């Protein structure tokens, strides 16, 4: 018996948003009488943290702390249209819509503040703590709480805004395929190290070092959640997962979590995550969509590491012990 070690690398990119565009998302923002802000959407939080990120984006754009923002989403009676949460589009599309809506609301807020302070709105700035200050004369200020009260009860202004983000749809040219699939791309490079048992074909992923370039880490802890979970799913895809283990034969499809194989908590690779940020030209604060691409590079990196370890190529996913063992036996026979 021999446990043989190998490592492999893979580098990838991934488009942000629906392929070829044409996927609008809207947002509405308004303030309450006491200067809290409601973001109204119909976007869906799948667990990736859409609601939290939209709150942070709105807070940044208006200039208030995140805990002053409430996100109300996914009620079609109240939330304006969103194409949906898929294609790494949620943060990018909805985030841009929220920024547009928030900026419009901010402008009204500054105008009301300007009237209260008897200055020009263009001379005002927010301190991020809930106050509006005169640039260069921060002692002259008004709280957003008071501005919202004034807007509602004194000046009859609606501190609100509408946002819409649409990448116009691109139609591929029939013969050449000339098209504009996406406006920005995330990037990744993964190095995986594995051990392969050459008598059983079993693979242990020892460690993965993932470098992801995602435009902007809007909330680094949430980015980390996505990237760590994605890296696990990539390894899972590489070595474990399928609903049809004997494809194209349709038999023996797993029907539960015992039969549908995924790495358990005792199978975890040591996982390193490094994030680079090259802000995208059209992303909300430069963000790209990291949620999907983070699960891709581990698959070929692990495949290449298996080859490095035992010298056989498994070009069919998943790379099961059986496929490795068959290849090793064929290799030995030659």
């Amino acid at each position, binding site marked *: 018996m021999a446990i043989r070690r190998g490592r492999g690398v*893979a*580098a*990838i*990119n991934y*488009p942000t948003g629906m392929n070829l565009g*044409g996927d609008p998302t809207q947002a509405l923002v308004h303030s309450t009488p006491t200067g809290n802000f409601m973001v109204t959407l119909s*976007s*869906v*939080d*799948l*667990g990736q943290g859409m609601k*939290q990120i939209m709150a*942070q*984006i709105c807070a940044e754009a208006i*200039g208030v*702390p995140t805990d002053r923002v409430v996100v109300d989403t996914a*009620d079609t009676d109240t939330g304006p249209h969103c194409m*949906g*949460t*898929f*294609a790494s589009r949620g943060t990018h599309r909805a985030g841009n819509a929220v920024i547009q809506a928030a900026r419009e609301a901010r402008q009204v807020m500054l105008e009301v503040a300007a009237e209260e302070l008897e200055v020009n709105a263009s001379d005002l700035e927010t301190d991020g703590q809930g106050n509006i200050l005169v640039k260069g004369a921060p002692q002259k200020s008004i709280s957003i709480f008071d501005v919202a009260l004034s807007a509602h009860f004194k000046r009859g202004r609606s501190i609100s805004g509408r946002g819409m983000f649409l990448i116009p749809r691109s139609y*591929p040219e*029939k*013969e*050449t395929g000339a*098209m504009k*699939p*996406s406006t920005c791309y995330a*990037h990744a490079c993964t*190095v995986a190290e594995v051990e392969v048992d050459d008598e059983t074909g079993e693979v242990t992923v020892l460690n993965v*070092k993932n470098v*992801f370039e995602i435009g*902007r*880490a809007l*909330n*680094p*802890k949430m980015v980390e959640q996505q990237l760590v979970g994605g890296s696990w799913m990539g390894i899972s895809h590489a070595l474990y*997962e399928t*609903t049809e283990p004997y*494809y*194209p034969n*349709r038999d023996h499809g797993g*029907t*539960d979590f015992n039969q549908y194989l995924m790495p358990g908590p005792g199978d975890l690779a040591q996982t*390193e995550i490094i*994030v*680079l*940020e090259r802000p995208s030209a059209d992303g909300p*604060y430069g963000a790209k969509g990291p949620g999907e691409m983070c*699960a*891709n*590079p581990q698959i070929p*990196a692990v*495949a*290449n590491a298996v*080859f490095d370890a035992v010298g056989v*190529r498994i*070009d*069919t*996913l998943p790379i099961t012990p059986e496929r490795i063992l068959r290849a090793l036996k064929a290799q030995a026979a030659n």
Partner: protein
Amino acid sequence: MELRKNYFADVRKDDLHEIGQPRARLDSPGHVTGKTAYFADRNFPGMLHLKMVRSPHHHARIRSIDTSDAEKHPGVLKILTARDVPHNVYTILILIQVGPEDETVLADGKVRWKGEAVVAVLAETERAAQEAAAKVKVDYEVLPAVLDMEEALKPGAPIVNEYHGQNYYLYDSGECRKVRFGDVEAGFAGADHILEQSYQSSPIEHAPTETTGCVVVPEPNDRFTCYTNTQAMFFTLDNSSIILQMPGSKLHFVGGTVGGGFGGKVDVIVEPIAILGAKLTGRPVSFIYSREEEMQISSPRAAEKVIIKDGVMKDGRIVARKVTGYTDAGAYSRHSPYGAQKGAAHYPGPYTIPNVWIDTYCVYTNRTPSSAMRGFGVTIGDFALEVQMDKLARLIGMDPLEFRFINAYRDGDMKAHRQPTEGAALIECMQEASRAANWPVAEKYMAMSSYAKGA
């Protein structure tokens, strides 16, 4: 996790207050106390349970359906068949003008995959619905099935889906989505080495811990509230409106809190039939996939076959790349024509190659329809591309990481689909990976930049 701020510092302003802050998630307190309300956490008096009678065959003609015993079963309120569905033949991407309509909500005369929905049973309890479902008698004439993409594309293969007429999706560009850039044959002719390899995958399930489902409540004003875990609220509402021939104003969808999606909840499968059940019974209806249904009935990530032929020079330059991709859509389109097309846009990967030829096919077989999943149209392609890159590097005796630097795309490089590269960062990711993994590459590669050459 480490943020490496030294990269791209010249094009990034780090002067933000809320963005970039590791704020606590506002939804987590609900998650850890069990108080977050998922769609199935809503319970309504008189709620009915919907269970589906499914095809046991890959491909069969339905001679007859007899629901008489099932209808008499205690606790049964309603049995639905194809004739109860106002617009039974549909396709979800019709909303963005991608047709034809090719799928039945409930099978009508034919089943095209093992597990296809045939009859819906609505009963007071899950148990009563299961018992009644077992009493539905469907008489099938089994037809030859095709489960292999290559077999499906051969002349004379059984036709999976008559709405297409052939076993592939017909794009405006023909039998496949094409990308043509440079002269790929001239590229091969001038290459030092040619390597053609084939890669395959089998279907993969999203396997969210929360299965697909919805709860529908008839409201007093002739409207229906649908609590759902769809990934796309209006997409699902608008498709339901078409299938039910019901004005969208009658539909109210509530969702947005989902127990994992990964692309598995963008099909419009459970909502229309549950709304129909609520409409015809006047009772709340719950239709929640069992785990078995989630694993084998809900759309998986498609199986793919990818054939890559490359021409490479001894110095490491890839001079020609031809990719032929096949996406196994299963019996119906769902999102697969879109996914195959996304693959065409993604190839030849993040590399600058002067001569490129891409064909991507969306193929129909008698299996569970596939659809979107995390990395849709790209994940399997990236596996193929990056294993191919490893093989090419070894073929010419070059370090696999250095080989990628030589070919990596940079700002301004023209892509095969004729868009100039913008915002590239592949090189920097590889430089950082080289450091992090202690995988040294020549200094000239560490000195490279994604910024435009000469800029």
